[in-house]
């Protein structure tokens, strides 16, 4: 049983969490070295290397008080010499020239001299202090560097072993529109393993599991939304790559990604999409991996790709009551009932097949593709049960998709284009007299874009997009004969690109129907990333973006890669 009082206090809690994250981020980003104190002087830092050990000598004017920290998975030893200052002529970057100790940085911070010794992982170290006129603090690193170990393995002809990596991530979002409330507290674990079985065969497996604590902390969503979004565990990649001369085969669960545009899915037509968070998720997670064989042939500048997917996947949509529910093609006030979605069962006859050819000529990157597939959006076949009562039977239909893309760089400007023609698309219509509530039309989606970097500092992208429906019917639900929209994107970097603000605005050009996404990304300590962001939807209730105008949100994310 969840109490209303607890629920009401959560927005404040969320705001506090958000503010704490933001202040931590800003503090971390702008932390400056503090004023130094006079004391012991660090005169020189030198390094010697032998076959079995590497020793770093810190020569100090008086006996040091020191502390040692092991950072970044034991790959950095930080020696903090309390009260010490750097000798004016000391080198701040000491050549190490050794795979055991790869670099030595010398700095001052918070009234201490700091020596960062970057070393190979898994190596042991010890520290000693000697007095020889001056004081020598010696750090000795022992063991065989990993590079040498790997070289031995390679020289012995062993097949390279598996590599395991991944990340842990927290995504917390707070809905701004009334009622303001926590909308996501998702903890994600992603694991992947890659390896080479023979010279010709390699593999990748990966999986993601998450739990969204928003359903434990609040009582804002219906039970079926909690069931849909509360937790998940799925295999993302599970495939083998086989290489034979000019031919390559990737077989298994995978993403097959076509197209040139970034941030939009025009020519990216092979995989189904998870739209339960509209298009706000990371792109890699919007695409749903599917079982397929991807055969590729490469000859100089020519590339051919053939795709066969025997197990079709379909788009996922937000349920009613979720933050981003799918629009229902019915006038306001209509009672709508749904049968289960009819999906084709896995069989040879249900296969999706396609091909793509690409050619690179004088810097022009062209490709043509065709895909015989299933419409990843269901056609909502409608029965008018009684006046004002509709029964929908969603059903996936076959569709042909033909497209072309290009990209070319000229004078620092990258030009991109994507043209995608859909044949046999079923659109919903609002006309109650229509027999099944859908009409079949062909349509063209195209995009023209440019990328440019201003002052070598600000990355910029502009994209112009149109959808043209041929033989347009005025009753088609939430579509126009020609719909024109555009997007602009800016991204820059500060603090050696560790702090990166980013802004994306996508809007219809006929009316204000807009999505604004502002983000601030911060990377720190080698393996950590933090992000705060704002997503704003604006426009009419029946607009692509305006329909979610009550789902504006702020969010914070923290990610640790390993």
């Amino acid at each position, binding site marked *: 049983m969840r109490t209303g009082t607890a629920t009401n206090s959560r927005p404040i809690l969320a705001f506090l969490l958000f503010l704490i994250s933001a202040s931590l981020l800003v503090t971390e980003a702008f932390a400056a070295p503090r004023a130094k104190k006079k004391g012991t002087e660090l005169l020189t830092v030198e390094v010697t290397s032998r076959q079995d050990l590497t020793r770093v000598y810190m020569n100090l004017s008086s006996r040091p008080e020191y502390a040692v920290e092991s950072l970044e998975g034991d790959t950095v030893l930080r020696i903090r010499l309390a009260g010490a200052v750097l000798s004016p002529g000391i080198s701040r*970057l000491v050549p190490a020239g050794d795979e055991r100790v790869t670099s030595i940085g010398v700095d001052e911070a918070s009234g201490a001299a700091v020596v960062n010794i970057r070393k190979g992982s898994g190596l042991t170290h010890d520290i000693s202090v000697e007095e020889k006129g001056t004081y020598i603090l010696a750090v000795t690193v022992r063991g065989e560097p990993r590079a040498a170990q790997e070289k031995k393995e390679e020289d012995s002809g062993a097949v390279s072993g598996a590599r395991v990596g991944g990340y842990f991530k927290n995504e917390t979002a707070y809905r701004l529109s009334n009622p303001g409330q926590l909308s996501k507290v998702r903890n994600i674990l992603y694991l992947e393993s890659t390896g080479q079985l023979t010279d010709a065969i390699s593999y990748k497996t990966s999986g993601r599991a998450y739990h969204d604590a928003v359903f434990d902390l609040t009582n804002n969503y219906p039970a079926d939304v909690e069931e849909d979004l509360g937790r998940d565990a799925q295999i993302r990649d599970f495939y083998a790559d086989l290489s034979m001369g000019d031919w390559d085969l990737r077989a298994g669960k995978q993403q097959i990604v076509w197209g040139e545009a970034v941030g939009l899915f025009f020519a990216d037509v092979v995989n189904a999409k998870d739209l339960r968070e509209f298009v706000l998720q990371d792109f890699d997670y919007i695409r749903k991996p599917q079982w397929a064989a991807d055969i590729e042939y490469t000859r100089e500048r020519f590339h051919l790709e053939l795709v066969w997917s025997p197990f079709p996947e379909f788009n996922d949509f937000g349920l009613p009551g979720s933050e981003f529910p799918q629009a229902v093609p019915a006038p306001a006030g209509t009672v709508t009932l749904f049968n289960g979605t009819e999906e084709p069962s896995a069989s040879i006859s249900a296969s999706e097949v396609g091909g793509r050819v690409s050619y690179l000529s004088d810097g022009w990157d062209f490709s043509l593709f065709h895909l015989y597939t299933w419409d990843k959006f269901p056609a909502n076949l409608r029965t008018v049960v009684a006046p004002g009562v509709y029964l929908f039977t969603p059903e996936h239909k076959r569709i042909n998709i033909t497209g072309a893309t290009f990209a070319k760089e000229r004078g620092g400007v990258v030009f991109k284009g994507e043209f995608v023609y859909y044949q046999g698309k079923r659109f919903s219509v609002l006309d109650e007299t229509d027999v099944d509530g859908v009409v079949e039309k062909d349509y063209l989606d195209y995009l023209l874009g440019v990328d440019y970097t201003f002052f070598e500092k600000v990355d910029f992208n502009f994209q112009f997009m149109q959808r043209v429906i041929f033989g347009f019917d005025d009753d088609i639900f939430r579509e126009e004969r020609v719909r024109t929209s555009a997007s602009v994107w800016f991204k820059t970097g500060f603090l050696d690109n560790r702090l990166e603000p980013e802004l994306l605005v996508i809007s219809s050009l006929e009316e204000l129907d807009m999505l604004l996404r502002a983000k601030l990304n911060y990377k720190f300590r080698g393996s950590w990333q933090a992000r705060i962001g704002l997503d704003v939807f604006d426009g009419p209730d029946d607009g692509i973006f305006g329909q979610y105008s009550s789902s504006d949100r702020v969010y914070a994310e923290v990610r640790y890669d390993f």
Partner: protein
Amino acid sequence: MRSGTISDLKNIIFAGFFGITLLFPAPSFSALAPPADEIVAKADEIRSPQLDYTVGVTVVSMKPGAEPREARYEVLVKGKDKTIIKTLSPAFERGRTLLMLGRDLWAYLPDISKPIRISLQQRLLGEVANGDIARANFSGDYKAVLLKKEKIEKASYHVLELTAIGDDVTYNKVLYWVRSEDYRPHKAEFYALSGRLLKTCVYGEYREMAGRMRPSRLTLSDPLVKGQLSTIDYHDMKVKGMPEKLFTKDYMKKLKY
């Protein structure tokens, strides 16, 4: 008569001197040194194998008041103009790949799972110019002129001025010091079109890599910011044939980390 004799003598002396001059021309600097472009080509051969090879690269960037930052890469080079740069660390950038086919560039980012066309100017390329990380042959991109010889610590160096042939190279002009006796690159100064010195590079830590002595460390410094420097260390250089298809944008997704 007498005057005629003197005149003849003068003519003989002049003719003899002229003849000797033709036979044994006065030693000039340009005549003693090989052609400038040849010096640059020989220095290129020392900097990196002119064959297909792979090399590990560690870049440490240092700025005043900031902790040193380290990034590790694996670089694959094929022929004159095909390069792949795989980012191994930091962890959050692992999996980023850059493909350079001449002046055409693509970046593969793991979180969007597709190669995207980019320009040389794009920030996505990161802090250290990838031309610095990958093999950066001067031959072909620059026209060389031998300016002078210079003594540095008892060794003699050719000092060359390299001028960009096209407008699509990163630096307009380079001053290049190459040791006379063995063509080892010693130092390069990189200049903008305006004449401003942008960067200095010192080639050091010569070690045997891929069959000959090569500089294993490049130290790049910014003359405008005191204390700002980067070191680029090369290790595990191996001459190794690689298939053409590896160096295509569609293969980027298949590169293993």
